[in-house]
């Protein structure tokens, strides 16, 4: 969806304002928001693409006005309600009002290191040959899906060159909506700054995105 999260090329947000010696978390609640989100992820009730979509489909004004971990918490609230683990009444009340729903697993403290080391690989076995090869010219589709996508607006309907072929990866556009993993070939496609931003662009600029095969057509 064309949400507020799709920020590439927008203007007016001001200085970057890097903080020297920045702490990992800026308040105790951020620690809990972080740990809670990861721990709930390990229950296996949703996948990483659903998590991203929950955050990115927040109303634009809310997304932009919220701090990073606020966005995480608003996303998590959505996910627990949508998946039936918590009711809206329970969220409002601040405590449990009904029996728990079954979850696939609960992460215990002594399994944290193992679970993090395992991670969540997103590559899958190839079932067919890659359509494009390194060096081939491709065009990104002009697409504006109302659901989840990982093709940023600035890189749609642009011509570029395949720079890397990564393998076959879970397709977020369907995985975010529980419509199967639908794995596809994934490519790094690079574009000149001028292709993306016009004649005024920095002539030395090259930008790439990682694009799934169905985002691309031969150029």
């Amino acid at each position: 969806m064309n949400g507020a999260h799709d920020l590439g090329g927008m203007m007016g947000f001001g200085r970057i304002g890097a903080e020297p010696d920045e702490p990992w978390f800026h308040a105790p609640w951020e620690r809990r928001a972080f740990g809670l989100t990861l721990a709930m992820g390990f229950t296996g009730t949703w996948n990483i693409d659903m998590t991203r979509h929950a955050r990115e489909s927040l109303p634009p004004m809310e997304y932009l006005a919220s701090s990073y971990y606020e966005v995480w918490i608003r996303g998590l609230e959505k996910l627990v309600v949508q998946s039936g683990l918590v009711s809206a009444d329970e969220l409002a009340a601040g405590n449990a009002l009904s029996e728990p729903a079954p979850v696939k697993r609960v992460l215990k403290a002594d399994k944290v290191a193992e679970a993090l080391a395992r991670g969540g690989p997103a590559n899958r076995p190839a079932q067919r040959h890659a359509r494009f090869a390194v060096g081939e010219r491709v065009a990104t589709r002009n697409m504006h899906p109302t659901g989840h996508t990982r093709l940023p607006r600035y890189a749609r309907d642009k011509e570029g060159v395949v720079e890397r072929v990564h393998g076959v990866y879970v397709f977020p556009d369907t995985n975010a909506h529980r419509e199967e993993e639908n794995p596809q070939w994934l490519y790094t496609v690079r574009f000149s700054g001028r292709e993306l931003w016009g004649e005024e662009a920095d002539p030395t600029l090259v930008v790439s995105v990682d694009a799934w095969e169905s985002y691309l057509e031969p150029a």
Partner: protein
Amino acid sequence: MNRHQHDQDHDHHDHSHLSDIELRVRALESILVEKGYVDPAAIDALVETYETKVGPRNGAKVIAKAWVDPQFRTWLGRDATAAIASLGFRGRQGEHMVAVENTPDEHNMVVCTLCSCYPWSVLGLPPVWYKSAPYRSRAVIDPRGVLAEFGVTLPETTRIRVWDSTAEVRYLVLPMRPEGTEDWDEEGLAALVTRDSMIGTGLPTKPDEVVR
């Protein structure tokens, strides 16, 4: 942390001082714990891991090794996931690694315009600026302006290569080894590798900027 926040940290029992978001997080955690979906000790362990065990010192070891060991450097270029795992850094948000090498002709910079994708296994959790709108919006259209804010000016002829992490591939910049470090060992070199030099918004510390 300002004094107001500091007071709140030591005031766990008086909810009247808590902000809306603090109340929300607390309510959510208590519901999820009460329902048995999460173990609060696992949350502690997750937080502790990313506050004390995982961070940019991991990535600095990778870079320093690549600077002194040509075979490792080749492996890093060919299969960064495996090369990095050989040093013990693997797993979450580092499952699919690619290392991109700076040269005198090309400077690499990494961003996630859509969210906050970042190589946790080698850099730890991303700083706030990396996840925020100013960096995410500008990195792909005005990288030289971004670099200037970080105090980095590159020759006008240097290509700027920006990697937008739109999938599960995570990028680690391999910066150029600073001049004047020919006789330095791996540990000394690792101390020169800054977090920002591995994102591409900075350069390694120069040898004359550190006390050996």
